[in-house]
């Protein structure tokens, strides 16, 4: 049994039977380092794969791992998700550390076709997303609601996509149309790549062969 249904229907986790694991480092580096240390100390028998965000964890780049989430397009993100789902990990670790901007990775964790899913908070306390831990999950969510920050950020983000994004998109369209129009006008002024712009005397600074620069 795998995926989200396993949260409700799977038997309680037997950690000794885990063989493959995916660590989704949906958190900043200090937490990521702590989670990784925890996993490798307590479960050395699990073959860990680390999924890290391209920009966030330079410290992990040269270590044992498979994925980096530097996919910039929706298509590539889907490819990544499918690759992870095909890998059928026994356990998936995700960090829920009350930080902004790691939402997509957390969602990826939930969709990752896991057998068991374990989440970590900022104190590196962890519990499995399993029916036996619903009280823990409830407490975690209430704690988040009380401390506001992450929930407020998620709400603001949703608001920004629904309300502000269309406004931004219209602005983008107008601005890019203007730039393209200006580009077309400028292209008419172009003379074979020799003149870069009205203000530019030249697109190349001429050089003598010995390396000394000439006046233009």
């Amino acid at each position, binding site marked *: 049994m795998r995926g989200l249904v396993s949260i409700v229907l799977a038997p309680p986790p037997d950690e000794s039977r885990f063989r493959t694991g995916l660590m989704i480092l949906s958190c900043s580096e200090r937490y990521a380092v702590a989670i990784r240390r925890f996993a490798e100390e307590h479960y050395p028998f699990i073959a860990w794969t680390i999924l890290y965000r391209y920009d966030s964890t330079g410290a992990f780049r040269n270590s044992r791992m498979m994925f980096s989430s530097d996919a910039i397009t929706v298509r590539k993100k889907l490819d990544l998700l499918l690759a992870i789902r095909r890998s059928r990990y026994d356990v998936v670790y995700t960090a829920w550390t009350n930080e902004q901007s790691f939402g997509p990775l957390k969602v990826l964790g939930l969709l990752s076709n896991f057998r068991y899913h374990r989440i970590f908070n900022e104190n590196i306390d962890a519990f499995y997303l399993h029916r036996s831990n619903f009280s823990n999950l409830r407490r975690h969510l209430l704690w988040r609601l009380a401390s506001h920050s992450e929930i407020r950020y998620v709400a*603001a983000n949703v608001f*920004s996509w629904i309300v*502000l994004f269309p406004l*931004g998109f219209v602005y983008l369209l107008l601005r890019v149309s203007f*730039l393209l129009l200006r580009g077309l006008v400028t292209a008419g*002024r172009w003379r074979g790549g020799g003149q870069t*712009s009205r203000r*530019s005397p030249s697109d190349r600074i001429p050089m003598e062969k010995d*390396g000394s620069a000439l006046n233009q």
Partner: protein
Amino acid sequence: MRSCSIIILTYNGRDLLAEGIPSVIEAVRQAGGDHEIMIVDNASSDDSVEFVRRNFPSVRILPLDRNYRFVGGNNRGILAARHDIVVLLNNDMVVDRNFLNPLLAGFSDESVFAVTSQIFFQEKGKRREETGKTGFFWDKGMLYAYHEEVDSLDLERRYVPTVWAGGGSAAYDRRKFIALGMFDELYLPCYVDDLDLSYAAWGRGWKSLFCAASIVYHKHRATHVRQFTPEELDVIIAAHQLLFLWKNLTSPVLLLSHFFFLPFHILNQIRRERKTTLLKAVASAARRAPKAIRSRFVRRPPRLISDRALLRGRYIRRSIGSGQQRLRVLFVCPYMPCLGSNAGANRMFEIIRHLAARHAVSVITFYDEDSKTAHIPELQEFCTKVIAVRRRPSLRAPSWFHIKPKDLLREFATPEMKAALRKEMRSNDFDIAQFEYLQTAQLVDIAVRFNVATAVTEHEVPARKLWRDLRHAGAPEKLDLFYQWMVMLRYQDSIYARFDSLAALTPEDSKYIARFNPRLRVYTLPMGVDLSYFRPDSSPPDRHTLLFTGYFRHTPNVDAMQYFVRDVLPGVRTRFPDVRTYIVGGEVPRELRELESHAGVTVTGWVDDIRPYYRRATVFVAPLRLGTGMRGKVLEAWAMKCPVVTTPVGAEGYDCRSGHELLIADDAGGFAEAVIRLLEDPALRSQMADRGYAKAHADYSWSAIGCRYEQMYRQMMQEHSAPRS
């Protein structure tokens, strides 16, 4: 040498005079000439006058009937002075024996209003809050004035422009001083009067200069701490800065922004610093506001330079900057400039090395892994200063309207980098701030705020790269990429518009940038190669061996190899089944590692030295379809006398012809044919390798490209040296 009157204003400072006057007398003796030393006494209640009269009979004394404070006392002294140059000294200054001549030599032309000395504190170990070399910047309706660090280049340059000449350690042209209305009594009891006067002088086109060779030692605020608490002094300074703006700003836009932002600054200070200094300063300044407004109408020489040119422009910085032989350049890099990592890092390193041979170059760079800090000593060998900032992405959402490239902002516009850049800008008067890539270019506002001329090198134009990606993408991806292209085009256009000069690596990139904004000044400064490192030897290459080198975090390199192995290599293998392909370079991703399952393909990963691979290669392949900019790998192959087959994208920026220095093929079949042609024909290989080698030597040495950078900088400096009114 011109003669001067040295005016020392004092109030109850007998002990300070006892320390200071002998040093001034000694300095005058050293300088020679007919100089006057005058003590202006603000009606001291101690026996200062008697003390000076008794112990220093050569010193002239001007006793005043009451305490006219700093402003009134000095004004009266200047009116009574006998010479046209007046040197104002605080009574807590001890001067260096050689301080006078360099100061007076600064009045070399008619446009010099003042020359100020370099200040050291008398107390050893005390933080050097003031140096005499001053600057200011305008931000959100407020003016921030500060002292800059002094370095060896200032000594070499002898005289550098400074925003204001400090009233306690500077020489003034007396006629100009009087013409400008002298120190304004608006600033009683002290502070900002000197800024006000120097600002008026700059507005008239008269310079204030800093002379590092003239040295004074200051017992900071020795007089004022007897009369005011530090908190009171802070309020006085803040109030006077406000009065300065209210009196001097003529630009309605700047005035409006000042009054708009002022409440925010007050609230910010209360909230963040738990201080009410600015609030008290506003109250204090408001009481004197009518006087400040009246001062606006006092007759002064006509203003030639506008507020905007002085506060936001580069008039002061550039007033004598363009003639400097050695420039002070700051490089801002998105990753560590070093050799052997990737072409971009190589280029940054080589350009910095070249420029540092003739200029004072400092570097601020991001690094993403601790191991990268090992390269800092290499840079320190020739750089003035190297600051490395760990790249820790900011977690704040940067664009609620989703019109900015979030990853770019999150990853590179980090608070740590902004703080480091701000600190460097504040403490050094850079002539040029050179940003590398759009990643760091987005921090340009900090340099602009400090009136530094700015340039950016765009190794790969991001919007053009996305457009190229879009053309090769499948249908569902196109929409996504199109949105990202719009975001990037708008963003890069808004960033580039703030630069004085832009440099792209290829004419195509230059053209693309300039097309969307014809006002930009765009140069093409191509890629280079280290010809002393990449040298061929006489050993023959291996049989039927193909090579590709690259840094595989750069996705166009990954795409190139996937394309080559899947679409081109089968065609080559039909003619040469034993052909071997080496893919050399670090940061190999999973999809590239999987290519090793194809026969004859070896993915080496990172190697310490790639030259043996070039030597063994029969043909170098660069089947690039994506990305923009100039590919350094082609140059390396040329320098190693290795024949090259590439695509039009791979040959972009090279002044070459297909069939002459290299072979260019646009599709998989043509590419395979070109590779086969070279593998079959040793004479053609040799001919092409020789021509490529000659081309690399003729046009692409780093020294030649470094010279082009210098040329660009000179042009930028020249442009900014002209006054703008």
